[in-house]
C-alpha cells in the first residue's frame, strides 16, 4: 500500500485519431472514497474510464494505481490488479447465459469464491437469479445493466468503475443501486469511481466530484459543495433529473 491516492490520474491526454478527447486530465481517487465525474454528452467521461484500462491508451500523462504505474500496462493485467468496470453500453456477452456472464466476472479467482459472491449479487439484484439460464443478449436493458454491475462486483474489485449505472433503469432500481453502492462503500470500504448523467443523485452519493467539460476538468470539490455551486446547478441540475 502506498500513501498516495489509490488511483492517480495526471495530465492524461487521449486521442481518437487526431481528435483529442482528453486534454490533460488530473483526477485522484482515494481508497475508501466514492468519486464521481459529471459532464455533458461527449465531454470525455467514458473515454476517461476506458483510458484507465489502457483502451484507448493515454498518449501523454500518467496513471498510477496503488503506487503502480499502469499507463502502459496491457488491459488484462490492469484488470488483474482488481480494477473492475461496468462499462458504457454494458457489454454483456450476448450468447452467454446470465450465470456464465457472472462466471466471467469471477475469472480472476478461477471461480474460487463464486458461490459466496453470486449470492451477494443475487441479494442485490434478485431479478438476475430468476433469469439465470437466460442468454445475456435477450435480457431487457435494465436487466443487462444489473448484470453488468453484478459481473463487475464478482471480480472482488479494489476499485469499481461504473459508467452511468442508472442508465435505462426505473427510478426505484436506481435508488436501490445507489443505496447498494453506498452500502458496499461503507461496509466493505469499496472504492468507487462513478460516471453519471444523473448529476443530482451522483453528487449526493459521492464524497467528491469532478466536472468534465470538453476533455478538461473545470471544477472539483466535495459532493455537497458542487451540489450547491451555482454554475454546476445551472449547467447540470436545473431542469435535470432531480
Amino acid at each position, binding site marked *: 500500500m502506498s500513501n498516495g491516492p489509490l488511483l492517480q490520474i495526471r495530465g492524461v491526454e487521449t486521442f481518437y485519431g487526431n481528435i483529442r478527447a482528453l486534454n490533460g486530465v488530473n483526477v485522484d481517487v482515494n481508497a475508501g472514497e466514492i468519486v464521481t465525474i459529471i459532464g455533458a454528452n461527449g465531454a470525455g467521461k467514458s473515454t476517461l474510464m476506458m483510458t484507465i484500462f489502457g*483502451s484507448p491508451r493515454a498518449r501523454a500523462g500518467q496513471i498510477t494505481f496503488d503506487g503502480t504505474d499502469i499507463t502502459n500496462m496491457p488491459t488484462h493485467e490492469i*484488470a488483474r490488479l482488481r480494477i473492475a468496470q461496468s462499462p458504457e453500453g454494458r*457489454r454483456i*456477452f450476448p450468447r*452467454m447465459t446470465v450465470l*456464465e456472464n457472472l462466471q*466471467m466476472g469471477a*475469472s480472476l479467482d*478461477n471461480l474460487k469464491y463464486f458461490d459466496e459472491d453470486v449470492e451477494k449479487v443475487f441479494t442485490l439484484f434478485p431479478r438476475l437469479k430468476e433469469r439465470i439460464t437466460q442468454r445475456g*443478449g435477450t435480457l431487457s436493458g435494465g436487466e443487462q445493466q444489473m448484470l453488468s454491475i453484478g459481473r463487475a462486483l464478482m471480480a472482488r474489485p479494489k476499485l469499481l468503475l461504473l459508467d452511468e449505472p442508472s442508465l435505462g433503469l426505473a427510478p426505484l432500481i436506481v435508488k436501490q443501486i445507489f443505496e447498494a453502492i453506498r452500502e458496499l462503500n461503507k461496509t466493505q470500504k469499496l472504492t468507487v469511481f462513478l460516471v453519471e448523467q444523473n448529476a443530482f443523485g451522483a453528487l449526493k452519493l459521492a464524497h467528491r466530484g469532478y466536472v468534465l467539460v470538453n476533455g478538461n476538468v473545470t471544477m472539483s470539490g466535495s459532493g455537497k459543495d458542487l451540489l450547491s455551486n451555482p454554475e454546476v446547478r445551472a449547467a447540470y441540475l436545473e431542469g435535470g433529473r432531480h
Partner: protein
Amino acid sequence: MQYFIQQLVNGLTLGAIYGLIAIGYTMVYGIVGMINFAHGDIFMVGAFVALIVFLILTSVFAGINVVLFLLIMMVVAMVMTSLYNWTIEKVAYRPLRGSFRLAPLITAIGMSIVLSNFVQVTQGPRNKPIPPLITEVYNVGGISISLKQLVIVVVTALLLAVFWYLVNKTALGRAQRACEQDRKMASLLGIDVDKTISITFIMGAALAAVAGTLYLMYYGVVSFSDGFVPGVKAFTAAVLGGIGSLPGAVIGGVLIGLIESLWSAYFSIDYKDVAAFSILAIVLIFLPSGILGRPEVEKV
C-alpha cells in the same frame, strides 16, 4: 441396399476426417473472424510429420504395437502442427489484427502457399506411401467395415465430445467464447486475449494433426498438395454446418463425405466435388447461416 450401406460407411469415414479439419476452421473463425486458409496445409503437414515419425519408428524398432505406433505418430504430429500454427498466428496474423478485413485473408492464402511449397521442397513433389498399418476388415451382413474406418469414426466422436466439453464447460472455453463475443470486454475482465487466441490456433492444429494421421493411415499415401482439396472441403463443411459451431463442423463434414461417396457410387466419380459444392450452395440459399449456425436473436 448393401451397396448403399457400404457407401454410407465409406462416406461417414471420409466425413469424419473432414469434420476434424473443419473444427479448426470453425474455432478460429469464431474467435478472430478470419478464415485460416493455411489450415488445410496444417493438416497436410500433420500427415507428413506422422509419415516421418512412422519411418523413423519402423527403422528403429521393428514390430512394436500398431496402436502405440499410431499414438506416437499422432502426438508428435500434434506437437509439430501446433508449433506451426502458433507461429503463423503470431508472425503473420496477429500484426494484422485490426487492419482491414481482407488483409489477414490474403496473408492466410500466402501462408498456405508457403507451407505447401516448403513441404514440396523438403519432401519432394511425389506421393509418399506407407505400408498398411491396420488391415483387419470385418464383414457385417455383406458389408465390409474395416478396422481403420472404425478407428476414424471412434476417434472423431471422442475428440468432438472432449472439445465440446472444453468449449462449453471449462474456464478456457468460456474465455474463448468471451473473446469471440466481445474481445474488449474480455480483456476488461482480466482475460489475456492474445493468449486465448493462440490456444485456439493450437487446438485447431492439434485436431488437424489427428485428421492428418488418420488420413495417412486410411489412404496410405500423402503428398504436398493434399492440403488443398481436403482443406477446401473441410472449410465447406464448416460453412455448411454453420461456421462457429463445433457440432456443426462435424455434421457438415459427414454430410460432405456422404454426398461425395454416394454421388461417386451412383452418378459420376468425376463430378463428386461439383455435387458437394452444389449442395452447399443450395443449403446456403435456404439456411444462410448453415445448419447449426447461430440464429440472430440478440438485441442490439
